[in-house]
């Protein structure tokens, strides 16, 4: 299924994130599959990079665990081929891994070709602003993949334009400044940012700091087409790992959390309809 097809539906999309290979390849397969059972519409699957400058401590730790357990770009592609889910997978990573995959010729083309080959639908590249993204955009066009950009509360109008020209799939609205991590509140900055890009023709998914069904509901009510959740799910993986929990038990918790978030997002639409 393509990203367009997901967002064409009336329902808000639930977009969970996990780092591939955290805490092990095998367990991670189970966890990603549990997210789909819990209602995931798209999965942002992290390809771990050794210098994750935009991540808070939760996802940093996940990346460290995954790298330690042997995750590499090649293993990641195998993972995507093997994992048994029908929803689209978006690869979330940092540019150096994409760049290096090209070997001596460098550049993103080889990486994108391989990603298309294993069925990845798009990319979020955390440290690649629109200005530096043309080579990747061209490769995505060649192989029919989407390139998602992150809009931050601090993004200026000029910068919004350069992203609007290059974005496809969906736009990732960063709910607040800072790094990733679950928070108690959902920022007012979200509504303002959504307002600024309301006339864009790509769907808007909001992430950063969302950890409960209630958060998800509020985000959707504020106008989001999708809700992205990472750290709150990674926390469950981390607790399971630290507590030596059976993989099936952690998977069940992930499924339940996913269901809570998805249900919350759906309530957001209902409420919006009622209030009209």
């Amino acid at each position, binding site marked *: 299924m393509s990203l367009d097809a997901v967002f064409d539906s009336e329902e808000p999309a639930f977009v969970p994130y996990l780092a591939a290979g955290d805490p092990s390849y095998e367990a991670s397969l189970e966890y990603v599959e549990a997210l789909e059972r819990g209602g995931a519409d798209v999965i942002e699957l992290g390809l771990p990079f*050794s210098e994750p400058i*935009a991540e808070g401590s939760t996802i940093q730790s996940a990346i460290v665990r995954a790298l330690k357990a042997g995750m590499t770009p090649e293993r990641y592609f195998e993972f995507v081929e093997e994992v048994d889910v029908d929803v689209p997978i978006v690869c979330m990573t940092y540019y150096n*891994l*994409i760049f290096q995959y090209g070997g001596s010729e460098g550049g993103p083309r080889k990486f994108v070709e391989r990603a298309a080959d294993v069925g990845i639908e798009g990319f979020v590249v955390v440290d690649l*602003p629109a200005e530096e993204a043309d080579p990747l955009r061209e490769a995505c066009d060649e192989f029919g993949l989407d390139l998602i950009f992150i809009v*931050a509360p601090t993004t*200026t109008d000029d910068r919004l334009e350069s992203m609007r020209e290059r974005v496809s799939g969906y736009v990732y609205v960063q709910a607040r400044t800072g790094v990733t991590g679950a928070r108690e509140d959902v920022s007012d900055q979200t509504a303002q940012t959504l307002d600024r890009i309301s006339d864009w023709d790509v769907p808007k998914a909001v992430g950063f700091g969302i950890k409960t069904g209630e958060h998800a509901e509020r985000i959707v009510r504020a106008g989001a087409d999708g809700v992205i959740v990472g750290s709150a799910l990674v926390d469950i993986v981390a607790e399971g790992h630290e507590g030596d929990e059976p993989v099936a038990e952690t998977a069940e918790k992930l499924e339940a959390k996913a269901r809570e978030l998805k249900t919350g997002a759906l309530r957001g639409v209902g409420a919006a309809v009622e209030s009209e």
Partner: protein
Amino acid sequence: MSTDEPADGSFGQYGGQYVPEVLMPAIEELEDAYRRYVLDNEDGFMDEFRERLADFGGRPIPLQRADRLSERYDTEVYLKREDLLHGGAHKLNNALGQVLLAKYMGKERIIAETGAGQHGTATAMAAAHLDMPCEIYMGETDIARQRPNVFRMRINGAEVNPVTVGRGTLKEAISETMRDWATNVEDTHYVIGSIVGPHPFPSMVRDFQSVISEEAREQIREKAGRLPDSVVACAGGGSNTMGAFAHFVSDTDVDLLAVEAGGSSLTVDEAEGVAPNSASLSTGNEGVLHGARTKLLQDSDGQIMESHSVSAGLDYSGVGPELAHLVDEGRVTPVNVGDDAALEAFHRLSQDEGIIPALETAHAFGYLEEHPEEVGDLTIVNVSGRGDKDLETVIEETAKRDLDVAPDMSVFEQVGAGRLGSRGDRE
């Protein structure tokens, strides 16, 4: 300034702005401030900077003939004494410039990373001098091996935040400072300590540091009557290196030698993800780290390797994009010196010239010892910093080796009941 560079801050294929979107507006704001205040001297910014560098920093800094070294190598050796700059290293040139710029920009808070602690110390001093609150991120490994600088930062009133991820060195400290900046971007300026990071940092830091070669070029003409055959500087991230080279780049008869840390070996351990050196110019390949495309120590997947050097200030997996470009162009020659030779050079300079150099700086002198024939008849060596901060490390590392040139340190065991050695013994 020294090279014809496009406005987007690219150096050949290197440089750029590879940062999370949340930081882009701050980077654009900084670009604008750099152009106005630094390049165009708006509101007399550069005049105030120069005046403070003189009165607070102690510039101009002498260029001194090294009599014993000149004799030893049968060549004229001049020392650019950046160790005499306030704080004991070249770092203040940049830190003072950036903290002052932050003030002109209306920022209210300063953050910085530090490896050896020299940049953190310089930033803490500049922030105290200009009355700005300051927080420094420093890897826990570096905190352990550079304690005197940690004390100095605290005494100047800065907060020191230990970074415990990874190996706890400069690479992790930079990542952590970027996270702070992403969170507090509106009122905070990130004072990067080297010519690394996204544009405009590499150009701006070079401009602040280029006072080194601006002075040295004049001074060598006065003292020796001509330009040198070579300039030698150690290179980690590369700020003292580019500072010492900048005004000589267009003098194509002057060889520019960037001395990297060869560590214990130039061979990498791909399985462990460790490069036992910090020689990114000599052995690295192109990639993207901390906001810039440059030469990096990385594995074949693109994961960044842990670097190593006995010198904390050179212990970094990347290098400034401008240096990477100048190396590709053949204008700068990368060379390297291992831990052992650097330690020997540390002792030699201390005994022969009465100058205790930073371990970073000692690499430049190690090169002189190993390859005196490569520097011509007249050379300038940049003494990027003094070595007081390194004394504990030097005593420990010297004890592990059999160095002819090192003094006998057993006096410490007699009077200190092994206190200095005890930390090493327990490890």
